Structures are given as structure tokens and as C-alpha cells.
């Protein structure tokens, strides 16, 4: 899938918290058009790795490249401006703001226009177009006026992705987008993500194995801070090291 040039690349990322190594020389990449799933048991260091890539944490060693640019020294906001569209494990929205306002905020960040004091945020055509297009993609066009605190859990997950879309990102970084969704909700979101990979490749951290094997073009398995295998779903399913460390022998 996709061409071979990685759009996002982690090279030898290591991070220790005191004596505990949370990431050990992690190298992985994300190529155009693909969904690359990152799986691993609880405590494997998935959240740490996400934070290292997003810029919340600085690695002890190694670097992160986004679109060929070394972004290791940049903070979270600067990496977002470079094209990293992130969704959070626990929905992280502006609770008192409407759905449309949340999406408009993303558009503001993308267009670099937060310092405008007198125009109306929701009447600006460029902002509005970006926000509305993103909301339509994730199926929230009927809920523009709803306060995001009043959305259902599933709708919040959709809005998270919608806000990331307004950034017109080079890559998506999604931390357990299916967490807490009903079967129906998960099926709907799976459809959205499957299409989204054509907009920008997705690095997907996910616990739901059905979703992972249904969506991923490649899978990396993280165990105790280390990537023990990377490959297409079939190869991962067959990999003996993965089976013993994570999937369990009984899983087909």
C-alpha cells in the first residue's frame, strides 16, 4: 500500500521514567495511504510513544520526522502546525463550545488566525468552509449548534476526528478512537477511518483487535517498550513471537 516514502518516522525513540524504560529504541514509519496500527498489551508503552510522537514528551534519544522534517525539538503546538492531526484517548474537546465552534477552532489553528479580535469566528467564510467540510466527513452536519458537552460518547469521538480533519494534517495520530464505542458506533467509525486513510495516513493505537485486523495495512506490536514485530496483518497473526507475547496461542 502507498509509496515507500515515510511521511511520519520515529527513529530510535527511547524514553525512561526513572529506572523504568517506557520506550526502547522504537523505530516505525507511516507511509502515504496506509493505516499503521500500533498494538500491545497494557503497559507496553503505547501512550508514551504517542506522547513522544505528538510532542508532549521529549525523548531521551532518537528523533521524530514529519514530512521529512526533524520535529524532535518542536513542542506539541508546533508539531500540530507542521501537520500532525491528533485525536485523544479520552475525548478532549471544548465542552462549552458548540460542535461548529470546536471545528472552527481547528480551522483557526490551521489558518494561523487566532489573533483576530473583531471579525466573527462563525461568519468567516474560509473558517466556516473548512469546519463544515470536516463535520460533514465525520457525519456531524446535523449537530452544528449542539454544545459538545451534550454530545453522546460516540459523537464526541467523531468530533475529535472532525477537529483533526480541519487541520488538513499530513498524518493522523489516533489514540484508541474506538474506546467505549458500541458495536454499531465502532462499525460506523471503522468506515470513516477506512476512507480517511486516503486523505492522510493514520497511525492508529487500538485495543479492539477486530478493528485493527479489519483496517490496518501494517501492524506493529509493542511489548515492554520495544517493537517486536512489524508487518501486514497476516504476517503478524502468524508471527510466533507475537502469538506468545501478546495474542495468546489460542487466537487463530
Amino acid at each position, binding site marked *: 500500500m502507498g509509496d515507500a516514502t515515510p511521511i511520519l518516522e520515529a527513529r530510535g525513540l527511547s524514553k525512561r521514567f526513572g529506572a523504568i524504560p517506557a520506550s526502547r529504541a522504537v523505530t516505525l514509519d507511516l507511509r502515504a495511504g496506509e493505516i499503521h496500527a500500533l498494538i500491545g498489551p497494557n503497559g507496553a508503552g503505547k501512550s508514551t510513544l504517542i506522547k513522544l510522537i505528538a510532542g508532549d514528551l521529549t525523548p531521551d534519544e532518537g528523533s521524530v520526522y514529519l514530512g521529512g522534517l526533524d520535529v524532535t525539538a518542536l513542542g506539541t503546538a508546533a508539531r500540530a502546525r507542521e501537520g500532525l492531526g*491528533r485525536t485523544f484517548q479520552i475525548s*478532549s474537546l*471544548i465542552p462549552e463550545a458548540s460542535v461548529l465552534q470546536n471545528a472552527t477552532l481547528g480551522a483557526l489553528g490551521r489558518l494561523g488566525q487566532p489573533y483576530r479580535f473583531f471579525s466573527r469566528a462563525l461568519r468567516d467564510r474560509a473558517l466556516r468552509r473548512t469546519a463544515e467540510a470536516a463535520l460533514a466527513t465525520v457525519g456531524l452536519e446535523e449537530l452544528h449548534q449542539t454544545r459538545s458537552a451534550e454530545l453522546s460518547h460516540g459523537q464526541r469521538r467523531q468530533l475529535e476526528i472532525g477537529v483533526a480533519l480541519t487541520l488538513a494534517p499530513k498524518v493522523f495520530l489516533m489514540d484508541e478512537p474506538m474506546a467505549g464505542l458500541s458495536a454499531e458506533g465502532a462499525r460506523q467509525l471503522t468506515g470513516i477511518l477506512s476512507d480517511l486513510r486516503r486523505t492522510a495516513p493514520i497511525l492508529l493505537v487500538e485495543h479492539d483487535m477486530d478493528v485493527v485486523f479489519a483496517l490496518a495495512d501494517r501492524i506493529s506490536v509493542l511489548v515492554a517498550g520495544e517493537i517486536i514485530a512489524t508487518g501486514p496483518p497476516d504476517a503478524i497473526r502468524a508471527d510466533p513471537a507475537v502469538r506468545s507475547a501478546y495474542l495468546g496461542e489460542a487466537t487463530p
Partner: protein
Amino acid sequence: MSLNRETTASLIVMAALLSTVLWAEATGEPFTITLATRAAIFALAGIGLNLALGMGGMVSLGHAVFFGIGGYAMGILASHAQTFTPLTTWPILIEGTNAMPVIWLVAVISSALAALAIGALTLRTSGVYFIMITLAFGQMFYYFMTGWPAYGGEDGLSIYVRNGFPGLNTLDPIQFFAICFAFLACALWLYIRVDASPFGLTLSAARQNEARLRAVGIDPFRIRLVAFTLSGAVTGLAGALFADLNRFVSPAMFSWQTSGEIVIFVILGGVGRPIGPVVGAGLYVLLEHTLGDVSDYWQIVLGAILLAIVLFARGGLTGLVLGRPLPHG
């Protein structure tokens, strides 16, 4: 364009304030006009704070710094004008002045610069640390002014003639009120515009969820710093008007009680509501005047009201009437 509830409420309250003054003028009650002027100036200071506190969630207990700087901008310039002594003669000659526009400009610029500097140092902190560090800055300015004999020290400065504005007789209560009311209306308009603007949306996002703001590529610190600077400038302008109303400035303008009073205007009226500080300041002045005649301990009643509002009406008086703010959309 249809008016939303907040704007309609703002127009009604402003119309009520204006009618009170016109009625007082017609019936020959200049003292009522002076009280209304006091309320308008307090409201202006409160709108300044509301930009930081309401929109931005920055609980500043040091806004007296900007109120005081505005006051002393007036006091220092006017005292030099009344003694005909220049502020400095080197490297350039700077004379005092009693022209209000110049005083306002100096007040706004110096309080904005102070807010920029204080904000840059304090906005790295949040929560109770931010409250304490802004309070500390307020006390620093208070003790500095108390100990600076050149401008009256503890005794403050009396200005014997009210400063002038071209074309107006500023000693006439209603004309001075008109100036203060005009500034209040402008500040209210500014607040409402900023609230609906991209900056307002970003600032309220900084208050509610920093991680979200960073994830869309915006640094919350810079957004807060700009808001804090704007907030300080508006409160500074109110300070200059307050000094002119009293024709007197003293270090009390820098005191923590002053900071607390500005916070009270906002909480009484409704945090983050455009008209909130106007309602709050109006009620404060009303209580101060009516209950102050009855007892020196009138603030016991104020305390009880404040307690009731904090416990039972988190949206202040505006929230009681209008309910929760609606999201724009």
C-alpha cells in the same frame, strides 16, 4: 442581524443606567450622577478584568496594579501641570498635562505594558499559584507607592482642578459622566465583539482545555498574554477616570482590597457575561451608598450576598436572569 440575549440584556442595563442619570439631572440630584459615574468607572474596570477572568479563566487578584497605574498616570501628569514643573528635563523635556486625552493614552499604554510584563512572569503558573503571584505583584506596587515620597507617598496626591477635555466642562457632573459612560459603552462593545471573534473562541478554549488548543497548533500562553495585556489596559483606563472623578490618587488604588473589589464586581454580576461587571458594579455602589449610610459595617451584607451568589447562583445576577450562556453557533 438579530440581537442575542446577552446583547439585549446589555442594552437594557446600559439604558437603565443612562435613564437614572438623566432623571437625576432633570430633578437636580448631582450626587446621584456622581454615584452613577462611580458605578460606570467600576464597571469599566470590571469589564477589563472580565476579559482575563471570564473569557480567559485567569483569576487575577492583582488588577489593582493596572487600576493604580491608570490613577497615578493621571495624578503624576496633573500634579506636574498644577505646579508648573516638568517631569524631566533630560534627555527630553516632558511637561505635565491636564489634557484628559493625553492622560488616558499614557494610562492605557503604561498599564498595558505593566500587564504584558506581569503576565509574562505570572502566566507560567495557574490556579492558586497564579492568584497568589498576582496578589504579590499588587502588594509590591502598593508598598512601592507608599514609600515613594515624590508623589505623596502614603498621603497620595490631590489634584485641585479636574482635568480638561476639549469642548466639555468636565466639572459638570453630567458631562464627566458622559465621558465615562461613552468609554463603558465602547468597552462593552469591545467585549461582545471579542467574545464572538476568533480570538475570543481561542481564549475560551485556553480556559477550558489547553491540550486541545495545543493539538490544533495554538500556544495557549501567548493567547493568555495578549488577553491579559488587553485586560490590564482597560482596567488602567478606568483607574485614570477614577482618579479624575475623585481628583485624588493614593496608594489605596493599588491595595489588595481594590483588586478584591474588582473581582467582586465580576462575580456579583456574572463571570464571563458581557454585562456582568456593569450589573455587579451597579449593585456594589448602590449597597455602598444605601447601607453605608446605615452602618460602617455594610460590607457584612455585601459578604452575605456574595456568599449566596457563589453558593446558589454561579452565573451571578446575569445568570439568574438569563440562565446559562448559549454557545454561539
